[in-house]
């Protein structure tokens, strides 16, 4: 109460004088921040606007007069007060700056010519701008062994460290992984990890970016380039659906580094390590550089494909490859063409393929998701919330997978919001997650039962019902496991919408531009602009003409139809169903049962290896356009390097194919597609323009209200079995990780994790290899005890490197129950 009245009484601005100019500062704002906003730069090393100030480096000393005469004070530690007079250029300030720099350089080696930071180093720059020019220190400097790896990705050179506390503060405050800390004391102080416990944070790369000297370097960039040789463009990361703003940098036509760009609504300058180092996969030598055609019919060559995928193919030229595709398309029966994927490209790619499918291929069998997300109509039609809204809602309800593993920077934002007290996190999950510590409440449930847990809470006399009814609510809704049906997740939306009608949803879609692909109509029954095919908007109907009448199949339907021999041409648009589709048996039958399989991909993925024709696609960094993040925020992606060989953007392939099939998509450049999207999609009319700001624009609204599934009773439990939960890991078996040299070795091992009590029931030691059986199939995997798993669940990584977890999953079953067998009681191995 007293806080509120104090806030009312307090003036909205505080007037201070900085270098003789009156400045209106925010109450409580730090002097250094007020100066920044007023365009006065105060040099600093330790202060970072996204972390709490510590006053470690003393570089920001300025003369501050609060009525008692001017005194040198660290401007990062002093909040503004009325009538404060600040002088950042006075003689005393300058002497202080010179002194601080002279002292910092006592122990800092002058190895700038061989230091990766040289040329973009705050210490170097500020020494030039504010330093004394010479040093009185003639003694030998302190020496440490040159850089020691503190994780697989980050190296630490302790000689260069100026102890600004940025990396350690970041690890503790922002990332929540305090695995590095100051050790020792005084002159001996140094940043270190605990022996044998590396700084293996998903966010470790940020410490390299915020290090004000060259003490922290990232192994993928070390000695790769000099800053003045870099070419840069601003873009939006499409590794996951958060859409962090990044600066993409290249040297000699090779991507060498991504840096986080600070935008308020999304990433606050942070990136996850997967996004930051994913450029390695762009320059991978395994990229497809020319169209490939299978030497013999695919049905007879799977043995060869298994042995050496590329031997099945012979490189060809675009004309013959596209001619072959067009031939197959023309020969196909009506309605026997399907397009899977499209979530890895730009909005323009998705729009082009959506248009190609509907107007030229005359099919509605399109799906950007591989039955691993929400039903498409819910994903685009639910009342949407932004990340900022999720971070400021009275209650943010998390019913999704572990965000730290799936959408790391969203995890950071929510963690920060929970710590700052701007929202309360309530979580319903089958395991503890990265946010469990920060949640005010964490309900564990069996896989697939989140909806019934929620229903019991909201219909009973639990206080949660009242809390949700009275305040603003954002639900972060995602598929927490692919081994349960999408309906289970849809039902959560139904339960909430029925009881908390004012709740808004942030759909935790995972794959890069899946939201953009759905917005562009890459799902059965959907059209660009979040419209239903059943009632196409006028502008769209005018441009596209007649649409396929019948609603098509989704990914499951497409693969089932292909398995039944009903699909003559199957396009895999950057999709790899053999790896990513939950049900690997259906995926295998579908891909082998389809007539002609055309993979548009950058790598010969497992599925592309089974294809008849592989068309090389340009990827992130090699094409421009726009992308859409999970909020529906449209932002620009930039083109910086040339695609290898003759690889080209997906949209271009669609446009050429259209011509060869006797149609015309009506555009010849990305900009024309962008303009067409803006003109036919009411949702995107204001969002897309030639000069999209860094923040991007949220495309809001949908042309329809989604229908919710009816609520079910939770599926019966198998009393002797365990419920399979397929969790995600940031470093998984996917192509981004396996093709990025820096990340490939970090891929998680595949184990089954169960609650210790459940392991006791199984009756083996933690780490033993056991057999796991479902109705569908069986696998051998090590089983490990983990107290973070809810009783009754068994958690396995999906997709797993080397292990086909999908063999256990029947995509048509609501949940997957498994039994664990330990061969006759004896402990194997």
């Amino acid at each position, binding site marked *: 109460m007293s806080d509120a009245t104090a806030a009312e009484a307090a003036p909205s601005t505080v007037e201070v004088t900085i270098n003789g100019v009156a400045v209106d500062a925010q109450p409580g704002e730090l002097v250094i921040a007020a100066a920044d906003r007023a365009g006065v730069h105060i040099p600093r090393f330790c202060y970072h606007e996204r972390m709490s100030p510590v006053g470690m480096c003393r570089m920001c000393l300025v003369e501050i007069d609060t009525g008692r005469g001017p005194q040198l004070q660290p401007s990062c530690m002093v909040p503004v007060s009325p009538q404060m007079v600040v002088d950042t250029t006075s003689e005393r300030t300058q002497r202080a700056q010179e002194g601080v720099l002279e002292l910092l350089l006592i122990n800092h080696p002058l190895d700038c010519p061989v230091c990766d930071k040289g040329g973009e180093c705050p210490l170097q720059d500020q020494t030039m701008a504010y330093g004394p020019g010479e040093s009185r220190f003639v003694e030998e400097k302190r020496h440490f062994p040159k850089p020691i790896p503190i994780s697989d990705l980050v190296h630490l050179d302790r000689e260069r460290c100026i102890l600004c506390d940025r990396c350690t503060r970041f690890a*503790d405050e922002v990332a929540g992984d305090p695995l590095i*800390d100051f050790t020792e004391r005084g002159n001996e102080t140094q940043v270190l990890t*605990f*022996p044998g416990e590396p700084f293996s944070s998903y966010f470790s790369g940020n410490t390299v970016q915020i290090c004000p000297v060259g003490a922290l370097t990232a192994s993928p960039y070390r000695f790769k380039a000099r800053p003045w040789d870099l070419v840069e463009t601003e873009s939006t990361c499409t590794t996951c659906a958060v859409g962090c703003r990044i600066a993409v940098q290249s040297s000699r036509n090779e991507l060498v580094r991504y840096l986080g760009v600070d935008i308020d609504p999304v990433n606050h300058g942070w990136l996850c390590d997967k996004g930051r180092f994913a450029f390695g996969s762009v320059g991978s030598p395994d990229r497809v550089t020319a169209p490939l055609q299978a030497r013999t019919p695919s049905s007879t060559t799977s043995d060869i494909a298994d042995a050496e995928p590329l031997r099945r193919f012979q490189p060809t030229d675009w004309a013959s490859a596209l001619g072959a595709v067009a031939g197959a398309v023309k020969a196909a029966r009506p309605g026997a063409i399907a397009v899977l994927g499209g979530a890895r490209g730009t909005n323009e790619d998705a729009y082009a393929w959506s248009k190609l499918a509907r107007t030229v291929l005359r099919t509605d069998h399109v799906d950007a998701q591989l039955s691993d997300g929400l039903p498409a109509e819910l994903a685009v039609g639910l009342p949407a919330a932004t990340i900022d809204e999720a971070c400021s809602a009275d209650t943010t309800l998390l019913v999704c997978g572990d965000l730290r593993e799936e959408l790391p920077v969203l995890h950071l934002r929510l963690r920060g919001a929970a710590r700052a007290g701007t929202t309360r996190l309530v979580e319903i999950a089958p395991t503890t997650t990265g946010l469990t510590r920060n949640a005010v409440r964490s309900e564990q449930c069996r896989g697939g039962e989140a909806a019934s847990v929620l229903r019991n809470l909201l219909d009973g006399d639990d206080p949660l019902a009242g809390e949700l009814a009275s305040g603003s609510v954002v639900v972060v809704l995602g598929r927490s496991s692919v081994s349960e049906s999408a309906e289970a997740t849809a039902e959560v939306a139904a339960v909430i919408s029925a009881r908390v009608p004012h709740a808004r949803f942030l759909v935790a879609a995972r794959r890069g531009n899946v939201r953009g692909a759905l917005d562009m109509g890459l799902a059965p029954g959907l059209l660009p602009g979040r419209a239903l095919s059943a009632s196409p908007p006028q502008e769209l109907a005018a441009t596209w003409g007649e649409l396929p009448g019948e609603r098509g199949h989704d990914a499951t339907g497409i693969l089932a139809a292909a398995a039944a021999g009903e699909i003559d041409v199957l396009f895999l648009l950057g999709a790899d169903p053999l790896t990513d589709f939950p049900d690997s048996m259906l995926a295998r039958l579908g891909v082998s049962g389809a007539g002609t399989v055309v993979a548009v991909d950058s790598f010969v993925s497992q599925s592309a290896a089974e294809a008849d024709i592989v068309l090389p696609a340009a990827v992130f960094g090699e094409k421009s356009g726009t992308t859409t993040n999970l909020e529906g925020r449209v932002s620009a992606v930039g083109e910086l390097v040339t695609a290898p060989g003759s690889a080209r953007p997906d949209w271009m392939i669609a446009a050429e194919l259209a011509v060869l099939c006797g149609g015309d998509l009506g555009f010849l450049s990305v900009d024309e597609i962008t303009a067409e999207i803006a003109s036919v999609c009411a949702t995107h009319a204001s969002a897309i323009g030639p000069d999209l700001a860094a923040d991007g624009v949220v495309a809001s609204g949908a042309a329809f209200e989604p229908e919710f599934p009816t609520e079910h009773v939770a599926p019966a439990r198998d009393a002797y079995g365990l419920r399979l939960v397929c969790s995600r890991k940031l470093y998984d078996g996917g192509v981004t990780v396996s093709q990025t040299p820096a990340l490939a070795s970090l891929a998680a091992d595949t184990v089954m994790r169960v609650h210790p009590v459940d392991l006791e029931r199984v009756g083996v030691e933690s780490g033993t290899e056991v057999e796991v059986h479902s109705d569908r199939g069986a696998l051998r995997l090590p089983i490990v005890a983990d107290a973070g798993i809810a009783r009754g669940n068994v958690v396995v990584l999906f997709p797993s490197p080397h292990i086909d977890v999908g063999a256990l999953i029947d995509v048509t079953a609501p949940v997957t129950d498994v039994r664990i067998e330990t061969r006759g009681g004896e402990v194997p191995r």
Partner: protein
Amino acid sequence: MSFFSEENRTLAREIIGRYPKRRSAMIPLLHVAQAQAGWVTEEAMVEIAELVDTTPAEVLGTCSFYEMFKREPVGKYLVNICATMSCALAGAAELMEHAEERLGVRAGGTTPDGLFTLASAECQAACTEAPCLQVNYRYRYRVDTDGFDQLVDDLAAGALDDEIPPHGVTARVRQHIPAGRAVGAVPPEAVNEPPVWIAASASNGAGSA
């Protein structure tokens, strides 16, 4: 495998229970660890991290800040001979030389039998009693060479066991606070009311103990 003995695990739990935040128990637990092993082992730091819900890196950071937490094995008796001004004037250097000869190790070293670690120390604030030394931080005043030999003999023979416990033991009698008399583990952020002395005029009391 756990580092703490059963008895010390119980003690650790009791100590943790005294604080609103588990992390506050870090330094007391480091003392318990040092008392148990004579020095702070890596296993001890890992286990403390687990007990107080933080990372080993943070425990190491705290532990290494304090000179008196030893992260290498030290002898049963840590002999710190003062080398600062008053003691130096009163013959501390000669005393150190004698000590090195007598124990057969250099300052900083530990005798092969693991009984003594000899160290040179900064001023121990007993300048009127120079030259002085400490054995496991227990003072010995105006120590001459004969006195030093006598001290070493007594320590080795166990004659001073009552007075000087092995290195790491801070006190023989440990404070035990019955659970009912603990202040009440209310984390600071859970306290909404102003402090009692401010709210003295208010009708209701403070805290939700």
